[in-house]
């Protein structure tokens, strides 16, 4: 079998995100890019990863990418299916989940996330889907990883609406609010990885994917993006990662027909 080892930027993003998941971590997975990355991790280097979906499936082991948060394949392969109140009250809220994996419509320099409205709340330019499980995922998971495509429209100085808090207005805000989780530890895009500076909590560029320049990353960011002193270069996707990722996506596309 020959594999096309050239890859798209989206593929690089999914691979980079998958690599952030390890061992038997319990991962609360949003649908879309986060679900692709989490399933890729489980199918490659992290077979013991525990996937938790807000539909109530604990330890789902889907053989293909689920099409929705409540895809039947999740229930069929889960260790246990609990109710929606239970998944939020008994499993998420007490801090049993290590990693929350979220997407975003807007994200700002302090990693606050907006999925509610673009524009003013009562007279929005774009009405987005809303909060879903994200506010409490962002508050209660051990850490949060955000997977989102990078552009100045998405990476904004300040989100129009804080749907899910990252670091609020900066250092100390999470602590003041009594939030238990550490907050966003990485934002994975198709260009690279942003991580919060330990002191300022501001997102800075820590990794560039192969072939991407700092300038490109900065141009895709709506605030003056700082660059980490030890900026690193991501390894390109391995052949194995690409094969598995494409298989997962092909099976999803087939299912979606």
């Amino acid at each position: 079998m020959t594999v096309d080892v050239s890859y798209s930027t989206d593929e690089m993003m999914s691979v980079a995100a998958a690599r952030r998941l390890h061992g038997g971590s319990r991962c609360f997975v949003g649908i879309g890019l986060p679900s692709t990355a989490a399933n890729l991790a489980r199918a490659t280097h992290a077979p013991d990863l525990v996937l938790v979906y807000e539909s109530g499936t604990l330890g789902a082991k889907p053989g293909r990418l689920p099409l929705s948060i409540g895809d039947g394949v999740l229930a069929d392969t889960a260790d246990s299916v609990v109710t929606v109140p239970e998944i939020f009250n008994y499993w998420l809220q007490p801090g049993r989940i290590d990693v929350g994996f979220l997407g975003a419509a807007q994200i700002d320099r302090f990693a606050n996330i907006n999925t509610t409205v673009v524009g003013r709340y009562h007279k929005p330019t774009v009405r987005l889907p809303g909060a879903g499980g994200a506010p409490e995922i962002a508050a209660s998971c051990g850490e949060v990883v955000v997977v989102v495509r990078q552009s100045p429209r998405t990476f904004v100085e300040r989100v129009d609406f804080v749907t899910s808090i990252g670091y609020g207005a900066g250092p100390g805000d999470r602590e003041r609010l009594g939030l238990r989780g550490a907050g966003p530890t990485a934002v994975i895009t198709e260009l690279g990885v942003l991580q919060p500076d330990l002191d300022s909590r501001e997102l800075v560029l820590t990794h560039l994917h192969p072939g991407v320049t700092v300038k490109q990353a900065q141009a895709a960011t709506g605030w003056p993006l700082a660059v980490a002193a030890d900026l690193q270069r991501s390894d390109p996707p391995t052949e194995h990662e690409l094969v598995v990722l494409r298989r997962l996506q092909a099976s999803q596309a087939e299912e979606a027909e």
Partner: protein
Amino acid sequence: MAEIVSLSEAVRQLVRDGDTVALEGFTHLIPVAAGQEIIRQGRLDLTLVRMTPDIVYDQLIGAGCARKLVFSWGGNPGVGSLHRFRDAVEHAWPRPLAIEEHSHAGMANRYVAGASGLPFAVLRGYRGTDLVEHTATIREITCPFTGEVLAAVPAINPDVTIVHAQQADHDGNVQMWGITGVQNEAVLAARSSLVTVEEVVERLEPRPGAVVLPSWSITNVAVVPGGAHPSYAHGYSDRDNAYYRHWDAISRDRAEFGRWLDGIRSGHATTAGV
């Protein structure tokens, strides 16, 4: 004891103009046929409640049945926006739509409180989010033991909750399985309830992961095979993913939607609508 009646009869009896109505389902077992029957019967001024309003709520909103939506995530799962919902919020078309917006955790707990006969529920939620300032039904509460401040949300007690399940028996006991979401709580929180089912069986065979609603806890059962289409009924049907994508095209355009609505109102089958 639940009475087994036709869908149109059930909707006629249970859903009244101005009611608070929850059609629940978490991507699975969504009571779409019942929602379209509400459109057909022309109900108005409904307060629609649901954690995850999707296509059927887009249809109800576009048809002008709703004056308010209480929800936590509104989208066409795997596809994108709900265009009728957006048109209502962004342009007040066909009429203004008030919104009351929560997180999933908040909505789930509102149903739990409703099912429990309590006026409110407590959760660790909403802190640091802008939802607090825009949603009047999020307040603070202080733990009388530790002094800790948490979020409180009021119970939801719909006038009627409608869900879809796989099976009922002749006595009107209902069984659903697979992902059962918040349906048990939504039914128990309601003043009256309708369960549409795939079929009536002689005996409800106990199944792993099943939720059984005793006949005496629900008002009406209606037999509506395929009543969850385009969502799925675990063990009975698959999700019709093409419908979700087609809905995007229909709902983007007011005129296109209008033609779809004419079809529904004239009684065309819901599947033929796309």
